[in-house]
């Protein structure tokens, strides 16, 4: 990795964008609550997250607005809900969400928020609420359900003096998580034993477990969310923690990008397409040079836009949504183009466009540089008992 003035300028501009986005986000958050409930006059109560509310046209009416959040896919998902004087939920509004647009739209179109209407502070316990989620957008609908449950519980505690059980923090390893651990074990063994011929087994496993079973490969949005300080819930999204943890730790420990080279489900499709067609077109040398810079330019542009909007989901441009089938028309055109490209040019997406691959490769290179500099360091202490003669 070359540390040219352009690299430093790119990093500095991203840092500025991050700070600008963070400041802008705070200013926007202040006006959101009033905008969500324009017909209500809100007054603070003893609990900072539960507000007393009166209707503008009926000053004698009494209700409450409770605000709570829960970790979603790309950051905290914040909800505000209006409760009547008996503690029944009247109306829920999302104040802030960093979910991928198509997933949030799917949840809202399915009418998830309407399913909570009429629930009371007595219908919830241990941050659990008995309402069906929306299939295909499990993480987002779970985050909304948890935020609603937390909101009802905090209103129940502070206004209606109810008591609730603490949620269980036990982490459950499901079938998908267990399968991913087995896959990682297999891949690490193969890498250590240098069995490159086993790579196709890794890809088949990655396609089935990461692509078909979990439908959520590692994406730029999830890595950007980490950079922005948003970590998904360990309890609700253990699969993601294992996937991202393994992918980010392997460059540091093994000094190899095992995710892209052995497990990525999209790379698996690309490899299958290349093998089925047997075509090996290549870009002209000039275009390859441009594509190399272009990948960095795209990565910089997407991070810049995500930081400025303080929204990790704004960063994504990858075709990985094909595993969940949730994407806009234009995204489908791009995904088709990526697959068509990989039919003619082996690993078309991975080599010239994938931001996740670029980030993981950069970590491998940085780790290599650190290793070399530590070996060359004259201040390195000799190992005990093995002093040079």
């Amino acid at each position, binding site marked *: 990795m070359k540390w040219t003035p352009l690299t430093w300028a790119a990093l500095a501009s991203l840092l500025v964008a991050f700070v600008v986005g963070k400041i802008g986000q705070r200013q926007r958050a202040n006006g959101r609550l009033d905008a969500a409930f324009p017909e209500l006059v809100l007054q603070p109560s003893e609990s900072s997250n539960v507000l007393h509310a009166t209707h503008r046209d009926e000053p004698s009416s009494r209700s409450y607005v409770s605000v709570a959040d829960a970790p979603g896919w790309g950051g905290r998902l914040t909800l505000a809900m209006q409760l009547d004087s008996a503690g029944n939920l009247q109306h829920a509004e999302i104040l802030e969400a960093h979910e991928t*647009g198509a997933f949030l739209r799917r949840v809202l179109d399915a009418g998830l928020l309407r399913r909570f209407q009429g629930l009371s502070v007595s219908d919830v316990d241990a941050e659990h609420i008995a309402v069906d989620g929306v299939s295909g957008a499990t993480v987002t609908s779970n985050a909304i359900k948890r935020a609603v449950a937390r909101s009802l519980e905090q209103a129940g505690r502070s206004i209606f003096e109810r008591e609730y059980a603490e949620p269980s923090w036990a982490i459950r390893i499901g079938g998908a998580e267990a399968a991913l651990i087995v896959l990682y074990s297999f891949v690490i063994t193969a890498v250590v034993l240098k069995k490159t011929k086993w790579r196709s087994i890794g890809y088949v496993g990655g396609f089935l477990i990461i692509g078909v079973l979990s439908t959520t490969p590692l994406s730029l949005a999830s890595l950007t969310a980490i950079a922005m300080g948003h970590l998904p819930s360990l309890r609700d999204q253990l699969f993601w923690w294992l996937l991202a943890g393994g992918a980010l730790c392997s460059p540091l420990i093994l000094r190899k990008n095992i995710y892209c080279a052995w497990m990525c489900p999209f790379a698996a499709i690309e490899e299958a397409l290349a093998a089925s067609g047997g075509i090996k*077109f*290549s*870009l*002209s040398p000039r*275009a390859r040079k441009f*594509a190399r810079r*272009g990948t960095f330019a*795209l990565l910089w*542009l*997407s991070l810049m*836009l995500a930081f400025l*909007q303080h*929204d990790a989901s*704004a960063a994504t*441009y990858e075709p990985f949504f094909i595993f969940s089938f949730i994407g806009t028309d*234009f*995204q489908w*055109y*791009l995904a088709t*183009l*990526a697959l*068509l*490209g990989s039919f*003619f*040019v082996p690993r*078309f997406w991975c080599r*010239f*466009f994938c931001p996740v691959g670029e980030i993981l490769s950069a970590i491998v290179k940085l780790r290599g540089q650190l290793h070399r500099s530590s070996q060359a360091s004259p201040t390195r202490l000799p190992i005990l008992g093995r002093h040079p003669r």
Partner: protein
Amino acid sequence: MKKRIQQWVANTLAAAMFAGIVFLLVSKFLERL
């Protein structure tokens, strides 16, 4: 000649992909403004 046609196909696909991604990112940004 055959190689130049192959390179032209590959370059065109890459250019279309690049332009499409830029369009996607910018249109998403403008949509949110």
